[in-house]
């Protein structure tokens, strides 16, 4: 109802601008000339139909309408708008249009239309009733057409890109699974299952770290919180409050993602064996921030077994991890507090 009222007032003001209140005089007089020029020059395709004639024919169509549809003036006047439809026009949108005309409602709908030469275009159709300002009698329907084919194409591309990203993500996971199985089977064959289990842990951490970046179809850098969550969720063992995460949004490049993923995996593996994650009540608090182009990530364990010496077997901060970090100009500080390990990762956020 509100929309109908809006139209009454619109048509009223159009009438007030003209010298007489009669609809047939709308395009006459000084204002009428201006109105006609505006109609002729606008790039917005406009037509008016007369619902009081049989089959609601077009009684006015501007130049943009003829340009858009490819028809001549004489070919459209007196015809119902349905000549714009074609075999692929969606029945649902047509039903919406029919209903709007029947109920005298304003409607904005995207409908697939056809030009005279048979080519298709997506039409953002805006239609509605025009009433006589004095009597409230239904005089016309207006229809404005806007070619939104490019918008449609962009939307379809985005949809395709999402589907493709999901497919790629699935295939990547599958590849990671097969790689993991081959590594594991090789370990059995060579009597080195423990070594290959370790390799697989790292491969899985890499896969998880990159999973979101690959499946989100967004071109920009991946946010650190997604990466932290993806890498650590396998260690949360079903309970959500094992990890307490606090940090701002920081975009990470591909190579940074790999290293952050690996470091978190090593810390979590260590915590599962000797630290907070080996106890039921254990928790890990993660804080991160960006400082001078560096990512600072603090890892603090609590609730685990008391630590009275540095675990000999601890893989964190030793061997390949520290070498890797050094090559990325980063560092991992380890502080074996009695209440639990406190680690601090610092590395450049490479763009």
């Amino acid at each position: 109802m509100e929309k109908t009222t809006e139209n009454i007032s619109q048509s009223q003001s159009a009438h007030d601008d003209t010298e007489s209140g009669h609809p047939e005089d709308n395009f006459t007089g000084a204002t009428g000339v201006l109105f006609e020029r505006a109609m002729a020059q606008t790039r917005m395709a406009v037509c008016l139909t007369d619902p009081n004639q049989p089959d609601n024919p077009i009684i006015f169509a501007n130049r943009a309408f003829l340009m858009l549809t490819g028809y001549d003036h004489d070919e459209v006047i007196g015809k119902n708008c349905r000549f714009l439809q074609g075999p692929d026009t969606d029945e649902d949108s047509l039903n919406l249009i029919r209903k709007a005309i029947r109920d005298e409602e304003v409607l904005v709908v995207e409908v697939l239309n056809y030009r005279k030469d048979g080519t298709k275009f997506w039409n953002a159709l805006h239609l509605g009733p025009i009433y006589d300002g004095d009597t409230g009698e239904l005089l016309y329907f207006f229809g404005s057409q806007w070619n939104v084919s490019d918008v449609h194409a962009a939307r379809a591309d985005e949809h395709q890109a999402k589907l493709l990203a999901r497919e790629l993500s699935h295939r990547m996971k599958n590849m990671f699974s097969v790689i993991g199985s081959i590594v594991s089977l090789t370990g059995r064959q060579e009597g080195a299952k423990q070594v290959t289990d370790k390799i697989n842990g790292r491969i899985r951490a890499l896969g998880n770290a990159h999973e979101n970046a690959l499946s989100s179809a967004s071109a920009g850098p991946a946010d650190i919180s997604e990466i932290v969550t993806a890498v650590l969720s396998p260690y949360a063992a079903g309970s959500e409050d094992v990890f307490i995460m606090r940090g701002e949004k920081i975009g990470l490049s591909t190579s940074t993602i790999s290293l952050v993923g690996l470091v978190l995996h090593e810390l979590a593996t260590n915590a599962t064996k000797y630290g907070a994650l080996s106890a039921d009540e254990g928790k890990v608090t993660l804080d991160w921030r960006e400082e001078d182009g560096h990512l600072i990530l603090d890892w603090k364990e609590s609730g685990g077994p008391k630590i009275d010496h540095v675990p000999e077997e601890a893989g964190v901060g030793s061997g390949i991890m520290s070498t890797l970090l050094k090559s990325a100009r980063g560092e991992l500080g380890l502080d074996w507090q009695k209440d639990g390990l406190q680690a601090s990762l610092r590395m450049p956020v490479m763009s």
Partner: protein
Amino acid sequence: MMLQNSVSETGMKLSGFKILVLEDDPIIALDVEMSLQDYGADVVHCLSPEEALEAMTQHVFNCAVLDVNLGKNKTCADVAVRLKENGIPFILHSGDLRRRGELIEEIGAPVVVKPSSDEQLVNCLVDHLIQTGHLSA
């Protein structure tokens, strides 16, 4: 090929269990099979839902591990239904949570996300067997 079965620290939790493994990738299947054997299980591997349904007429399974996507638009759905009818507990092993989320939810069984470690898979299965009363803790 001689493959070494590593003796697990946690013992033969699945000793005496006959397990159906439905997995269309033979490499992953062999890995899963050997992981379950590490824990004492007797494993029958099937590559397709048809094979699995056939195997269910020939063996009495205690539980199952089902891959969800089985290639060429095939899924484990029919096998899951049959297992439920027969009261056989099972878990899902899938890397396709995004595309197959609805189906997985519909089946309503624990999920181990691929890629997974031997331990993750076995722990999930053992936990599920304990929860459903098919194995004592």
